[in-house]
């Protein structure tokens, strides 16, 4: 059921299908040596190793790819990219998988999607990131009281060090809104 779900969603998005094909092309010469997975500081937290992720991509197992959280755990440390004997842009490929996953709007990535959306809205609004406001909007969007609670301790610490922006200056429709819009247009 899940498989059909993802395949259907992909079929409806030729741009994402194309992007996934690009990822496959990027990692085509992978020889499954496992250097990436051995090097990855987060491999231990992943539900599948990066090597298995590439294998799934190469064998068109999209169901496996997008039922995994692996690419979400990539910290962009670039060690795999540095060491891959095939010189594959693995960190970039992980980021692309992330993009496809967000694009597919899958439930499992909802929280992260909301987080990044809040972040981008923040930039659109202020040009720079106002961390407090961003987190507030994120918490509102998540609609899960447990999430803000887990960040409370940190917030208090930062507050104590005067590192949070307590005031929310207003910028009308948004400081970078025109730029964002033009970019959106260009993209099409």
């Amino acid at each position, binding site marked *: 059921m899940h498989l059909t779900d993802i395949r259907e969603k992909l079929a409806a998005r030729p741009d994402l299908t194309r992007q996934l094909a690009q990822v496959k092309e990027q990692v085509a010469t992978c020889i499954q040596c496992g250097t990436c997975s051995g090097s990855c*500081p*987060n491999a*231990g*937290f992943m539900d599948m190793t990066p090597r298995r992720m590439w294998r799934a991509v190469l064998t068109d197992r999209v169901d496996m790819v997008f039922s995994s959280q692996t690419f*979400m*755990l*990539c*910290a*962009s*440390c*670039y*060690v795999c*990219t*540095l060491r891959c004997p095939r010189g594959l842009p693995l*960190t970039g490929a992980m*980021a*692309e998988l*992330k*993009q496809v996953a*967000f694009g597919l709007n899958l439930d499992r990535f909802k*929280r*992260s*999607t909301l*987080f*990044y*959306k809040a*972040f*981008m809205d923040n*930039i659109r609004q202020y*040009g*720079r*990131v*106002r*961390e407090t406001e961003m987190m507030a909007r994120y918490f509102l969007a998540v609609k899960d009281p447990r999430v803000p609670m*887990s960040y409370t301790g*940190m917030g208090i*610490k*930062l507050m104590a*060090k*005067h*590192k*949070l*922006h307590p005031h929310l200056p207003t910028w009308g429709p948004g*400081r*970078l809104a*025109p*730029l*964002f819009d*033009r*970019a959106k247009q*260009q*993209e099409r």
Partner: protein
Amino acid sequence: MDYLYYPGCSLEGTAKEYDISCRALFEALEDRLTEIPDWTCCGATAAQCVDPFLSVVLPARNLALAEKTDTGLDVLVPCSACYLNLKKARQDLWENNALRAQVNQVLEEDGLAVNASVRVRHLLDVLTRDGAVDRVAQLSENRMKGLVIAPYYGCQCLRPYVEFDDPEQPRSMDALIRATGADVLAWDMGAVCCGASTATTKPQVGKELVGRILDQAKTAHAVVTVCPMCQMNLERFQSRSVPVVYLPQFLGLSLGMPAESLGCGMNLSDIRPVLSRVAP
């Protein structure tokens, strides 16, 4: 030497002390930092995830602003994430004419244009290669003698662009630390990932990774960092109390600068052990 300065969003918020100490240190070293006027966010991790094109446009805007100053100066970036975003955008725009044209169409209406000629450099690159080592050595009078310092580089100032240091076994901070009279901890965790932004969303990851790193630093008096994200993670996830300071804070202290002038009250970790060693 003079530089254009791109602080980035973190340095306005959670990493305020990094910004403060950076500016103070360069002043003390008699180098001038000129903040890029009207700079905006580089897109951080978010842009790359949700909108690849925007992840070029956002840094490109800042590069265009830097070029617009017409000073020919290098752009100095203290935040490793911002550094990578700006650097990556510069490389991509340099190599890809079509992309550059596309981006410039977006920027045009703001009266901006990017030609990717400006050089983007990380703070550490500038400090190690532009002669700061000698000046610190002259001015510090070995003030930090007796301290053992663990240099922590993180990832994105070293990788994927190999510019000024060995990406696996970095050594560039050694000379700076020794110039203060301090000893460098012989460890090999300096380039090991702390979890970066993943630690924000998956705290258990940060906890374990940072634990591994700080375990190896237990014989050091302090860890020195060059990235707001690393600093945040190292301070936030520590179970033992290891002082973590920004490199410019540490260098500033070694020059005898007052702790307040370096934002030393804002660190989340208890850095009194470092401060007490240098108190006059």
